[in-house]
């Protein structure tokens, strides 16, 4: 994609990132406050282990999100508050404990419909600073544009020249003076959040909150300090101001949004928020078609960036933590590992692997009587560095990683194996280590080249296969010449928190629990 005025854009981004102003703005509405409180209370009495009440909880979440995040008047047809309330009431009135609070909720919603002026919208209209350089985030949770008319309509009557941001791509298209977020940021992917707050895409972020909503800044990872640069760096600043008064949740020390978000997550995902035996760390990605999958942490995904010019389309390897709302993922259906093996085998990978990893059976044998932690400790004593050696040992033993990443680690591993008599003594240990190290590097080279070749093959064929399509269509499966099928899926949301799931759930694309329920 051709970038216009890259330097001037970068200049603005550095200036913005040096000092970002984040303004929490309280929007006073007693009717909304009443609805929020009723939603919280009703959520509190529902038993989400019961399927019927679980569905009701989801509908309640949806109603709440629609009230919080919309810019439409509360009586608008697109928002459909009356219909949503009616559906909830039909179910909730069958639960004795919920009747009273449901009536309060109904009163609140009716208030909103009778006095439909949306105060977040009114604030927007009354604060028209540089509208053409202002962005408004519309995709607030689970890939949903709450309260926005469906389709690509003309929103100028509603928001003037303000630019709508419904994906990271829309955000990255320009630099803003101001970005308005009509609610909390609980549902933003890590990348979306970073793009808004840390990449200098805007000078000011205005967060509009009703009483009862709570916004909190997320921490950002910092580089470890080095003596060479100590005292010479100038920290970027975030000036965070708030005119928010304590709300009902703050009185209780509770962040309702966070609580409800976690409860809804439990309802809709077949995973856990805490580690457990046999569970793997993963991140959940929800697609716009309502399906989703758990992707192991540290996995890279193929992100397809389409361009009007075929040659400029790219297929990028993106770490799962960086996948964001609006990205198109090329999901490889079937066994690409097999294809990679085939390409690698042509380059003599298997034979080389046997030669250079001849220490693996010895490591397996040692791990029968010693734990990885014990072996790691001995390796450290033998001069190895690294804080995750024990974890690495498992990967080396099961072959998911070919071996140590440094010569020093390899030397200490071989030393430990020799000292336990799992490998024969070596007259010339230096040469023995060097030979194995060179072999490992060649092995990695073969795999790297095979991976690159396969990646370029997929990219080329995907570009060809899509060249006849004016726009990328959701769930389009593309069959490549090598038999592989690739499906393009657009990301609706990415969990910013890790979850833990059994192996069988990893990379398994299926409808979110309960089917497509949002929107």
């Amino acid at each position, binding site marked *: *994609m*051709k*970038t*216009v*005025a*890259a*330097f*001037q*854009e*970068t*200049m603005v*981004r*550095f200036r*913005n*990132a*040096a*000092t970002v102003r984040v303004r929490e703005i309280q929007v006073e509405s007693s009717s909304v406050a009443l609805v929020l409180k009723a939603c919280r209370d009703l959520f509190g009495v529902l038993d989400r282990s019961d399927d019927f009440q679980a569905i009701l909880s989801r509908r309640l979440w949806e109603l709440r999100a629609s009230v919080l995040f919309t810019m439409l008047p509360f009586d608008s047809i697109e928002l459909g508050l009356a219909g949503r309330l009616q559906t909830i009431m039909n179910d909730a009135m069958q639960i004795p404990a919920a009747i009273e609070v449901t009536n309060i909720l109904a009163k609140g919603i009716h208030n909103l419909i009778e006095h439909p002026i949306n105060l977040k919208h009114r604030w927007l209209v009354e604060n028209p600073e540089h509208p053409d350089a202002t962005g408004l985030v519309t995709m607030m949770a689970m890939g949903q544009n709450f309260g926005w008319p469906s389709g690509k309509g003309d929103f100028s009557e509603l928001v003037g020249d303000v630019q709508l941001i419904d994906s990271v791509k829309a955000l990255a298209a320009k630099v803003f003076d101001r970005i308005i977020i009509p609610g909390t940021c609980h549902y933003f992917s890590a*990348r979306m959040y970073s793009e808004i707050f*840390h*990449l*200098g895409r805007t000078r000011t972020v205005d967060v509009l909150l009703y009483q009862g909503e709570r916004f909190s800044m997320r921490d*950002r*990872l*910092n*580089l*470890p*300090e*080095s003596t*060479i*640069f100590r005292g*010479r*760096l*100038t*920290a*970027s600043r975030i000036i965070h101001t708030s005119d928010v008064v304590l709300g009902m949740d703050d009185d209780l020390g509770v962040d309702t949004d966070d609580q409800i978000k976690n409860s809804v997550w439990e309802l809709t995902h077949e995973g856990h928020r805490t580690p457990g035996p046999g569970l793997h760390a993963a991140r959940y990605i929800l697609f716009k078609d309502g399906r989703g999958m758990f992707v192991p*942490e*540290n996995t*890279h995904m193929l992100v397809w960036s389409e361009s009007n010019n075929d040659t*400029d389309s*790219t297929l*990028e*390897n*993106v*770490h799962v*933590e*960086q996948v964001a709302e609006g990205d198109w993922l090329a999901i490889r259906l079937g066994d690409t590992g097999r294809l990679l093996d085939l390409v690698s085998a042509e380059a003599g990978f298997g034979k080389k692997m046997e030669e250079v990893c001849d220490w693996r059976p010895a490591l397996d044998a040692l791990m029968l009587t010693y734990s990885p932690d014990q072996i790691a400790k001995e390796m450290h004593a033998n001069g190895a*560095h*690294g*804080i*995750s050696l024990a974890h690495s040992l498992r990967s080396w033993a099961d072959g998911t990683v070919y071996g140590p*990443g*440094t*010569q*020093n680690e390899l030397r200490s591993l071989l030393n430990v194996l020799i000292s336990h008599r799992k490998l024969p003594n070596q007259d010339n240990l230096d040469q023995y280590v060097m030979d194995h190290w060179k072999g490992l*590097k060649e092995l*990695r*080279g073969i795999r*790297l*080249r095979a991976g*690159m070749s396969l990646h370029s093959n997929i990219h080329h064929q995907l570009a060809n296969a899509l060249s006849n399509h004016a726009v990328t269509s959701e769930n389009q499966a593309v069959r490549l010449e090598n038999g592989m099928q690739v499906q393009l899926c657009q990301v609706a949301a990415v969990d910013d928190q890790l979850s833990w799931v059994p192996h069988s759930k990893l990379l398994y694309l299926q409808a979110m629990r309960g089917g497509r329920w949002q929107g």
Partner: protein
Amino acid sequence: MEFPEYMAIRHPIVLREEGKNLSLPDWAKAEIWLGWWCRNCQLEGKRLLVVAVLPSRKLSAAFAGLGCLLAGAKQFHGGFTWDDLRNLPEGSKIFWNIPGNHSRYEGEIGKIPDWDSNLVSVLITRGARRDVGTVWYFSAQRFSECLFSEECMPTQRRTIAMDNVLRLHGELGLDTKASWIWTAGTEAQIVTNQTKFWDNLDDLEIGSKGSNPLRFEDTLCAAKGNDRTLSKLRVVSVGQIHEQNSLLTILDGGDSFDHVQDIESGNVLILLDRTEYTMDKHNQILDACNSAIELSPGILPDPPAELPPGLEITAFVMPNDRT
């Protein structure tokens, strides 16, 4: 921020983008300095691992690359001499241009002629069609009139651009020898997404205040990908790393970072934007930090006293077998 005295840049650098003149902001100065520093600090038996996390790295690798060239030019001594040519073994390939002549020549060193041991014979293998297959005899005088290199000469356009780079160095107050630019060997490689890298430089010009700016792309004296012609910087994709050795490797972006262990020698400068600095990378850098070597003060040139906001940098000195 001002460039440190040791960089010897005497005159301000200015930029022009889409016809608009712009002064060089502090963050860009800092990135040029960073490339300069990483290339300049060559430690016996050790390597420098530097990581910079930035709000945007769109142009960072280019600025760091430029700084790296300025350092290389300043450190340069020698160059390809008449004696070097005379000492090349028979059959060696040699490349040259004749200023003012549009042809690029390639030839093979032949026997020293019996009648004059002060001449070097070269069989022309590529060049102007009428010359191919003939033998030329070079004297010290003729040698000094040509631009010789042990690497294939770049195209005419790039040759002119490289000449202009020497002019730019001069305008900045640098004392860069002409032989630096024509001597084989690169100062650094940049591992990046090549399309984006070059696109970002498309409309950008750079120069010294009051002089005609050059295309930024040209000032990098760079060869792209598998182009093996003479260059001072190689810009490659991740798939091409394993073929290269370099005094400095600039890994531009998260994708490039993932190949850090494929860099077997030389210093490494990693450039990431803030979204790319994820937990797995953080852990890898902590690992590196744990095996870093303590360095006595004064071994490395001091960084500027105050780097501009937005740049987060860490640096470690590593044993040679680790990155």
